[in-house]
């Protein structure tokens, strides 16, 4: 078992299986497997997923659009954002 996403325990096998089933859009892959949706926001896994996707679909990695970067860039404690509020 080779883990690609350490936040959500997603493996190479799970990614390859979905691609084989016809899910070749990175946006759909990440929503079905929750790749890039954990606290690391995809820093670890997204480049690996792109390389798997490129290899299996015969595309060049740069042809695969990157998902949006989401706020916050790193996890933030809620109290840091509500400080001073009643």
């Amino acid at each position, binding site marked *: 078992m080779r883990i690609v996403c350490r936040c959500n325990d997603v493996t190479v096998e799970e990614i390859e299986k979905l691609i084989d089933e016809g899910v070749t859009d990175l946006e759909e892959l990440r929503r079905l497997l929750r790749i890039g949706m954990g606290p690391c926001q995809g820093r670890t896994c997204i480049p690996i997923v792109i390389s798997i996707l490129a290899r299996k679909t015969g595309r060049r990695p740069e042809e695969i659009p990157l998902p949006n970067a989401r706020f916050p860039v790193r*996890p933030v404690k809620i109290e840091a*954002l*509500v400080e001073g509020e009643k």
Partner: protein
Amino acid sequence: MIGIIGGGIIGVATAYELAKLGEEVVVFEKKYLGSGSTFRCASGIRAQFTDEANIKLMKYSIDRWNELSDELGHDVMFQQTGYLFLATSEEEVEAFKNNIKLQNKFGVPTKLITPEEAKEIVPPLNADAFLAGAWNPEDGKASPFHTLYAYRKAGERLGVKFYEYTKVIGIEEGWKIKTTRGEFKVDIIVNATNAWAREINAMIGKDVVPIKPFKHQLVKTEPIERGQIEPLVCPPAWNDSYVIQDGEDGGVICGTALEYESSPDDVTPTYEFAKEVLRWAVKIVPALRHVHIVRQWAGHYARTLDNNPAIGKLTENFYVAIGFSGHGFMMAPAVAQALAEKIVKGRTKVPLDWDWFDPWRFERGELRSSAFQIG
């Protein structure tokens, strides 16, 4: 051949239901399936509405939700974890009682509960702030991602063809759908583009459903222990703010009614929203203060003038299911079945009030009572 424009949950589920009735179906989606509003929704499913049409439709939809994973052959993660509305004033308690009476009349088992009972359901709740709760244990949540995938796969097995990254650029009488990937001849069209629907209706000269897209956002926390905030918890008086634990990973999704009228293509989150939603979230569940937020995103409520969707025939062989005003995901199983049966058989067993949801009501100046909306 039936052409569906819009590959969100309504379009994809309707495609499946039509194929189930033996129709040949093609679906056109300008980005990827689910990319519009479906994949951005908060995942809640409720029958706690405040009018007969929406209560009956959602009661039926919840029955369908219960069958969905088995029927589609893929787990949509539907869980009946309930919706808990909380009252902060005596007037609100009275309003809750009236709503509960109406919901009970149509078989929805909502009941009034005490703050102590609410705290048993949601252990970290700031129960002292509330006078009572309206609790329906049959409401729930499901995964938007897995639901759409399940409908898509089941549709494909029945021969539905999905064209992603295929934008509809024109429609000719008859019908000929012109897309960025060529022209398609179809007999019947279903417009399921929700926030983008006016553009499509205008292509046939029938821009009669006034829909305005409003940007809504959600903030999500890191996963917390399961069983803390499983229902959707909402004190309507607190700016319609709500919290609910994601059924899949256990993070807490937080929403509030701060919205922006905007293009549906603008999905940039705002810092103002993060501050506002979290201010309310920690009032509902104070311990959330110690949790990290990991992401924030935006989608759109495609709102009509009365916050009820427009479902039905726009003209001969052209149907719409649009303007869901934030309720498309929860309604999809019922609406898709109703619309497919209506198109193919001319009648349906789904208790959908076609007159209430008539797309032409706005032209006639007939507005419905506003569908109860949160977030």
